[in-house]
Every structure is written in C-alpha cells, then in structure tokens.
C-alpha cells in the first residue's frame, strides 16, 4: 500500500509518503513499513526539516510455541536553516526469541528474549560563538561541526502471564528488563581565526562508556461480582537509567526515572438505571538528571474520583461527579516546589417536560490551590471557579427548533503573598445564548445564533477599585443556505459583533459602581459562497468576504474604520483512478486587501495559494 501527499499553505510545503508491505505464509511472515516527510518553511527561506522511518520485520514460527523474529529500524531526522544544519540517525537491529511456555484456557505464560545492536549518529554544523585557548593564543571561534556517535548492544527480556483463577477473579502480570552497554563519542571541531589571520581548527574529543538498564513490572487483579459489581487493582513499577550526550553542556547526561503507581477501580449499579463508580490512584515519579540538574523533579500524587449517574429512562437523567487530587512536587532547583490541590464537583441533569420541550442544566464548583514551599511562597495562589448553566430546547418540527441557554461563571484568583495580592480579582460572566433553526422550504434554511455577554472584573482590594473593568458584547450570526437541485449550494453568512468596554467603579464607598464606556467596537463579516458539484467527486467554490471593523472612543470621539476584502476560490477532487487507487486533491486561492484610510496607507495586499494532493494505491 502506498500513500503520497503534497500540501502547500502560506508558510509551509509538506510532502509525505508512506509505504507498507505484508507477506504471510504458514510459518513465515515478512513486513516492511516506511514513511518519509519533508517540510519546507516557505516564509523562512532555506529552512525546513525531513523525517523518515523504515522498519522491516521477518518472523519464523519454528515450533507451535517458539517464534524467531528479526527486526531492523532506521530513523532519520534532519533540520536546516541558513546557518545551522542538524541530522540525527538511529539504526536498530533486533533478534528476538519468543516462547509460549504455557497456553491453556485459564493460564498463559509468555517469554521473549532479545538482543539488539544500536547505532546513533547526530551531526550539527553551524556558527559557534565561543572563546577557546589554543597553545598560547586565545581565539574566538565562528563555526563548528559537532558530531556525536552512540553505539552498543542491548539485551532484554519480557515475560507476561494471564491467569483466570476463578470465573470471578482474573490476574495478569508483566515484567520486562533491559541492559545496555553504550559507547558514546563526541567529536567537536570549532573553527576560528588567529590574530595573525591564520584559520585554525580546534578539535575536542570526548568518550564515555555508560551502563544503562530498565526494569518494569505491572500486575492487575480483576474481580467480577454479582449484579454488575466490578473491582480491579492495578500496580506498576518502573526503574530506568538512560544516558545520552548533552550537546549544550558538553557532558554525558544520565537520566534516572523511578515510577510507582497503584490504581483501584470499583463500579456497581445500586439500583436499576444507576451506576456508581469510584477510582483511587497513588503515584510517585522521580526524574533525576545528573548534568542538567535543573530538570530534576519528584512528584508524588494521590487522587480520587467518584461519580454517580442515574438514567432510568429517555425522559431524563441526572449525574454527579466529585474529584480530589493532590500533587506534591519537590527537588526542583529552578522553582515550583510545593503542593497543588484540586477539587472539582459537577452536577448535570436533563428532563424532557413534553415531547417538544426539554430542559438541561449543569452546575460545577472547583478549587485549584497551589501551595509552594516557604522559600517560594510568594507564588502561592488559589483559583476558585463556579458555573451554572441552564438551557431549554423547543422543537416544533425537524425543520424548526429553538434553544435558549443562560450561563453564569465566576472565577476568583487569589494570590496569597502581599507582593502580588494587589491583582486579586474576580471575573464574573453572565451569558445568554439563543439559537434558531428554520427550514423555510426543503431547499432554503436559516440558522441564527444570538449571544449576549457581560463580564465584570472586580479587584478585591480597595486601592485597585479604579482598575475594575466591564466588558459587554452582543453577537448575532446568521447563515442562509439555498440548495439548487443538489448540484449547487449558495450560502450567505453574516456575523455581527458589538463590544464595548470601560471602567466599572464607585466614586465613594457609599455609591454604587457606575459603567463608564471607554471603547466601542463593531465587527461585521459578510460572506457569500457559491459551491457547485459539476461532476461526481468534483467540487468548486467561490466566496467573497468583507470584514468590517469600526472603533469608537467616546472620550475623545475618535473613530476608525477598517474594511478588509477577501476573495476565496478553490476546487477539490475526490476520485477513484486506475481501479484500486484513489486521488484526493484540493487547491484554494485567497486574495485579500485592506481599504486605505488615507492615500498614503499600505493596501496590505496578499495573494495566497493553498494546495494539497494525496494519492492512495493498494497493490
């Protein structure tokens, strides 16, 4: 199977290819999978990247329980810009030996032993801005060639067991371990000019022989009780040491990861139509970096989630969920050590009052509290949020329905330390949305959505009263669609948005807050689109758009107007060719300019082509 596609938009040209091949006979199977992607950054001339991967695999079933496999993987990543070129290649060749030790309906035991040869090469060339000492002279280097080779064998073992202890109890366990002995060599060549004008090369070679390894294990127990009761416990463990060359710091980086987690799950239907679920989790992750110690961190977390859903009939349902999560982070040298606590509660419900009228509602409350260690306590903050959402839908017919929604949200951000608590504020949003769907005739339909929003930002502290802000908006989106005999569609869209904003403050403590409009803004977009399907799998369209923005500042009576015209035309093809191949292609041309406000203004014209073509072929 072969796929290829080329996409070009305003900033990027992307060519992607993939090929896959599979062959299977009684004991032998062969497969090959490859992909290659090349990206050209059109607006950054000379910049781009390539990436490719080729994997081939052959396996042979020696006996019913013994399988031998040989797998080779080649990966390439490259990037370039006018100054810097980087290439990274990885080669892997693995021979694995899989044994099915036990295979019965209640017990299966599987083991795989493998050996792998690894070879990596990273090469970067580009400018260098360093001061180096050679012999008795000091020079400033201006270019470099940085090459890092990594090679070595890896051995590994994986084991897996599945055991049905009883019809109501199942257990599984997996273990894997690897050991790698690598040789890492760094060859850095920097180039500079001596004071006497002679070009010199400054070589720097380093060799490392790190020993790496990984052990991981996981175990799961599942209990299936009567009347839909299900309980499970899943435990995981990972201990890993991986080394690589850190080019910035010219040293070997050893990353040690230690992870442990336990996850418990319980679900039970207490009554018909209801479901109770409880989950609990504890986890621990330690990431230690030997060279770039600033990335070291330890995270300990525990969380619990419970939910109850009740839906006895299609007439209505109700649900509630509650989540608590606590994560402690430490050992970070660049900050961020402390505890984060999250609590979240949500209630949802739906009820159909009549065949045509239904109401839905939801309410939620949450708290996110970040409590840093005393040395970083000035970054302590709490964020509390509450939301209430009520909506009603009235359906007159399939062609005609209306929806009304009322939404209130309140978010309160509290910095605890006095150095930041001046910005503590509450943002309250009131929003009313309404939607109308009207099928005037079988071919003519109208969709209209209305939205009215008022957002109040009220600062907690009295000295910050003058910063209080009110934003209001009205939004009306209208779409009229006419379909002509299913070969063509005409769509007219109008988007209207008005927003104003200004201060919302009281002049004295006893007075009510007053709104003082500082800025008014109108945004309108009018779009007319004609789409036609002249033949099966072919679509052409043309769209004329006008974006209009007007701004008024009442205090100075300053008015501005901005009209942007846009013409979008394009076509797409989606067809089967040559029997089993399919071709999908599309192109789009976007021409736009902004009307001048004075003769000296730039038109800000642009003419953009966006195109893509994809071919899929099965052999």
């Amino acid at each position: 199977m072969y796929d290829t596609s080329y996409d070009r938009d305003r900033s990027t040209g992307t060519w992607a290819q993939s090929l896959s091949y599979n062959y299977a006979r009684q004991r032998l199977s062969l497969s090959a999978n490859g992909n290659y992607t090349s990206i050209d950054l059109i607006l950054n001339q000379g910049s781009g990247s390539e990436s490719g991967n080729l994997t081939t695999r052959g396996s042979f079933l020696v006996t019913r329980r013994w399988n031998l496999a040989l797998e080779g993987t080649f990966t390439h990543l490259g990037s370039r810009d006018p100054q810097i070129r980087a290439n990274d290649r990885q080669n892997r060749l693995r021979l694995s030996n899989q044994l099915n030790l036990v295979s019965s309906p209640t017990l299966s035991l599987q083991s795989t032993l493998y050996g792998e040869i690894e070879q990596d090469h990273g090469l970067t060339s580009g400018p260098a801005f360093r001061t180096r000492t050679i012999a008795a002279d000091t020079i400033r280097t201006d270019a470099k060639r940085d090459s890092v080779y990594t090679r070595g064998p890896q051995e590994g073992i994986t084991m897996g067991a599945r055991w049905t202890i009883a019809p109501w109890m199942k257990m599984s366990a997996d273990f894997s371990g690897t050991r790698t002995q690598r040789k890492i060599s760094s060859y850095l060549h920097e180039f500079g000019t001596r004071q006497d004008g002679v070009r010199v090369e400054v070589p720097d070679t380093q060799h490392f022989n790190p020993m790496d390894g990984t052990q991981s294990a996981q175990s799961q127990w599942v209990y299936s009780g009567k009347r839909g009761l299900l309980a499970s416990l899943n435990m995981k463990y990972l201990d890993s040491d991986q080394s690589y060359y850190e080019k910035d710091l010219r040293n070997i980086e050893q990353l040690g990861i230690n992870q442990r987690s336990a996850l418990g799950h319980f679900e039970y239907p207490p009554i018909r139509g209801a479901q109770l679920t409880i989950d609990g989790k504890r986890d621990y992750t330690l990431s230690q970096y030997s060279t770039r110690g600033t990335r070291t961190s330890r995270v300990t977390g525990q969380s619990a989630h419970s939910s109850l859903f009740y839906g006895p009939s299609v007439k209505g349902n109700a649900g509630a969920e509650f989540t608590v999560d606590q994560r402690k982070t430490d050992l970070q040298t660049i900050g961020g050590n402390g505890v984060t606590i999250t609590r979240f509660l949500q209630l949802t419900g739906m009820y159909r009052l009549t065949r045509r009228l239904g109401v839905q509602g939801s309410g939620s409350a949450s708290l996110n509290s970040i409590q840093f260690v005393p040395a970083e306590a000035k970054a302590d903050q709490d964020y509390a949020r509450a939301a209430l959402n009520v909506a009603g839908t009235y359906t007159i017919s399939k062609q005609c329905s209306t929806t009304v929604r009322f939404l209130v949200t309140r978010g309160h951000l509290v910095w605890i330390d006095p150095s930041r608590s001046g910005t503590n504020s509450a943002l309250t949003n009131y929003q009313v949305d309404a939607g109308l769907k009207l099928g005037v005739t079988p071919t003519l339909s109208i969709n209209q959505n209305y939205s009215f929003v008022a957002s109040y930002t009220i600062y907690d502290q009295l000295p910050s009263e003058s910063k209080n802000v009110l934003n209001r908006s009205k939004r009306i989106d209208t779409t009229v669609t006419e379909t002509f005999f299913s070969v063509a569609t005409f769509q007219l869209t109008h988007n209207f948005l008005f927003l104003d904003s200004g201060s919302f403050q009281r002049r004295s403590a006893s007075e009510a807050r007053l709104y003082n409009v500082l800025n008014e803004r109108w945004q309108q977009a009018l779009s007319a689109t004609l789409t036609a399907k002249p033949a099966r799998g072919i679509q052409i369209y043309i769209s004329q758009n006008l974006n209009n923005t007007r701004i008024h500042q009442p205090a100075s009576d300053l008015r501005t107007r901005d009209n942007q015209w846009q013409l979008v035309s394009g076509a797409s093809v989606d067809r089967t060719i040559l029997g089993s191949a399919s071709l999908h292609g599309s192109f789009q041309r976007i021409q736009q300019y902004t009307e001048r406000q004075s003769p000296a203004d730039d038109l800000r014209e642009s003419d953009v082509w966006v195109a893509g073509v994809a071919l899929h072929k099965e052999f």
Partner: protein
Amino acid sequence: MTIRIEGALAVLLLALLTLASCGLFEPRNPKPGGGTIVPCVTPNSPEDVITNIVDHYASDAGITCYTSMLDASFVFHPDPGDSNEALPDTVYVGWNRDVETRVDQNLAANATFHQAVFDSEYAARVVSADGHTQIRFYAYHLRIRAPQSADTLYQGRADLTLFQGTDTQWRITDWADKRDGSGLRSWGYLRRLYRPAGT
C-alpha cells in the same frame, strides 16, 4: 427498585449545595497588605494580546496576565532545529498551556532582566472568512539575563494563531517558533531550559 428522576435531581442538588457550603471550594485569604497592580489590557483585539505579552512575559507580577492570553487549547511548536538539537530528550512534547504557565513562572522567578519585543510582521496576516481567527507572522527579539542560559539575546520568528472566543476576547491557540537564520538562539530554546521534568 427505581427512583423518580425529579427526586434524584433534588438529592444531587442538595449534595452539591452541602459540599459547596462546607468550604471545600473556598480560596484562602491573602496575607495582610497588598502590592501594586500591573494593568492587564482586556484582549478585545489581537493587538491587546500582543501588548500584554510584551508587557508581562517573564515578569513576576505579570504571570496572571500573560497566561490569561493563552487559550485552553494552546500549543507551542518549537523550530524543527531546536527540537532536533534536544534529541534524544523529548522536552518539547506536550507543550500546552499548563507547561507554558510553569515555564513563564520559572523564568519570572529566575530572570534578573527581561525585555520582549515584536519587531515587525514579516508576512501579511491571514484572516479567516468569519474574522474570528487570525494568523500573524512576527519577527521578535528577546533580551533576558537568566542563569540557565549563557545567551542574553534571543531572536527568531513567531507565527501566532489568535482566536476570538465566544466571550469575544482574543487568545493565542498556536505559537509556532522559528529560527530566523541569524544563528542566534530562539525563544523556544530559552523556554526548554526552564521546563522541569514531569510537567
């Protein structure tokens, strides 16, 4: 046994109110005092978002403002060269709003001097037909003295996708960082030095 749906809704509502009223969702009280306030412009236009980035990036008092300019779906994309250079460390993977917030906090706590400047737009803007999405192509430079890096000048290009949400405010959904061919380190390189493991 079955329960009427009206009864179930009433019980759940009662449970919600009970839990909410026992202080589980109450923020802590700030310590006495109260520092200075740094104005954060309401992002009613893409220009407001840019103003807030310039004024508040890597600033101790501007963390709230900077991170409020990032959409919940925010993703940062490094230059392919920076990503390649970091290998086999996959430090750029999963760079969302939480990671960006953490990195900004670390930079703010660590940097002794910072100045972010969007110098120019190196290509014409792309505006969606409905006017609610814009892609802007900025050339930037950044001066930061931060102990994790020997460099103090960073330069490159930032392709920002800005989206106007249902609350009518603009936020950044995608930030694609690019080297500019000058050989100077990019903003993305600086960012990766301040991302701890496990975030």
